[in-house]
């Protein structure tokens, strides 16, 4: 008997959308910092200055929001606790197999939804978390190069003592594209699952509810 299950608590939905916002802003401003495509007409303008300010502002928003999400890994419900990201958790592997069957039209019924993350989703999100942490660390290193302070040093400023700033700049830039690539696939899968499994997964990140037993 299908009923609506409260999967994504408010903090999850909030941090999710804050991340989305900051990543979009960080990417746009970051791309400008990397290759200033707009030129000022007057020296009194402050385009690069503003763009860098925004980059740093959203960087902090991003850090805070991610920090809160991590905190919620210990506070949250069974869908959002850290263990929900263990791809090998019992059942997940079997479920993955069933999903394959369904999408290869071998099985005619989608598996009973797990509601939480599938094995592949868990993996993807762990990988993403790593990329996030790298962006924060490498960004902090670039920031520390200009404005050294202890907090930034701890968040990754120290990386500048291990790798050259040029190298960190390159990877800070490259990993942005890795993240944007994730987003494309991520959004599509959301739409796909929602369409075929009718589990309300897409609306869940807005409403919090998924359809299941």
């Amino acid at each position, binding site marked *: 008997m299908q009923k609506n299950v409260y999967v994504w608590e408010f903090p999850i939905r909030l941090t999710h959308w804050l991340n989305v916002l900051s990543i979009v802003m960080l990417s746009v401003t970051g791309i400008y910092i990397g290759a200033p495509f707009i030129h000022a007409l007057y020296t009194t303008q402050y385009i690069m200055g503003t763009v860098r300010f925004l980059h740093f502002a959203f960087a902090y928003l991003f850090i805070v929001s991610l920090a809160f999400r991590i905190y919620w890994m210990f506070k949250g419900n069974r869908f959002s606790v850290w263990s929900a990201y263990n791809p090998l958790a019992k059942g997940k592997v079997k479920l993955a197999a069933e999903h394959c069957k369904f999408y290869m039209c071998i099985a005619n019924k989608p598996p009973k939804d797990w509601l939480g993350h599938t094995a592949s989703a868990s993996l993807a999100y762990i990988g993403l978390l790593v990329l996030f942490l790298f962006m924060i660390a490498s960004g902090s290193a670039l920031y520390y190069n200009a404005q050294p302070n202890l907090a930034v040093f701890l968040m990754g400023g120290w990386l500048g003592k291990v790798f050259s700033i040029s*190298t960190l700049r390159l990877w800070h830039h490259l990993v942005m594209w890795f993240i944007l*690539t994730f987003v494309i696939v991520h959004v599509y899968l959301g739409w796909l699952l929602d369409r075929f499994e009718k589990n309300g997964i897409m609306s869940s990140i807005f409403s919090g509810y998924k359809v299941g037993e």
Partner: protein
Amino acid sequence: MKDESIYAALSHRGVSRRDFMKFCATITATLSLPSAFTPKIAEALEKKKKPYVVWLHFQDCTGDTEAILRASNPSVAELLLDIISLEYHETIMAPSGKLAEKSRHDVITSQKGNYIAIVEGSIPTKDDGIYCVVGGRTALSIAKEVCSNALVNFTVGSCAAWGGLGSANPNPTGAVGLQDVVSGAKIVNFPGCPMNPVNLVAAIVHFLTFGSLPALDSRNRPLFAYGKRIHDNCERRAHFDAGQFVRQWGDEGHRKGWCLYEMGCKGPEAFLNCPTVKFNDKTSWPVQAGHGCVACAADHNWDKVYPFYGRLQKVPGFGIETTADKVGLGLAAAAAAGVAGHAVASSLKKDKDCSSKEESNK
């Protein structure tokens, strides 16, 4: 022997009191000390006798020596004849061969632990150091002998500080900086290619005045010279913040002195006081002459602060022309294409076979 004070020597050469104080003021400024220190420096120079200096050349290009020859306030003549007693310097000393080596030997024995050693050029360590031999002896053995008995060692230029040009990939001779071959000795590094003579002179005078070295950073560079980022003191910074960038050599922005960021300027990664002290009597410095900084004082800038004419390093494993953005965009585009392809395929699928089943599990 009779040693006379530095000021006495200067006045003997008809250097006026006024010029002398002017010189002291310059030094105070370079050291970024409050001007109240000027009299203290003057006083010290009036008392101190000339320190003995041994200048060693190893794997160098003599560019740092030439830099010192361009010193002003004090001029090189004043420096060489009045402020220091340069006992050994292969480029300008009178004697050659055995007698030259005698000059070196005399100071390091008679002034053991009491002379200043200045090192120019890297030291080859591969194959027992046979890539730099002077008077039949390797640079390695000379450096150990001279520098471990010095009161203090100053390395001039990036080669002596970290290996510099000679140590650029693939470092054919195993070239390293002084601090990698003499342990325990007191070393102050003046990287740069060449180092700025203003900074070396200022440090020497600081040493004579206060009997101590200026504050150093974690890599033994004087903070007064290496503590600030070029990008933060650059006269073109306003154009950077505004968003006014040179895009082509000789374009309008270039002629108007806009920011060289897009042309590959490494000022945002370089730490040195070039914009404030400049070179050759404050005539100019790289950015002022329209060329980006190449971070010539940075450790292994030849390989790490690269490319000189681009903003970002090349992506490892890709050709010289593929930029980070090409790679990244390609990746994202591929994903998008894959997604689109899959979407089409699966929607076809829906309308066919799987559809009936879907009805059944309503």
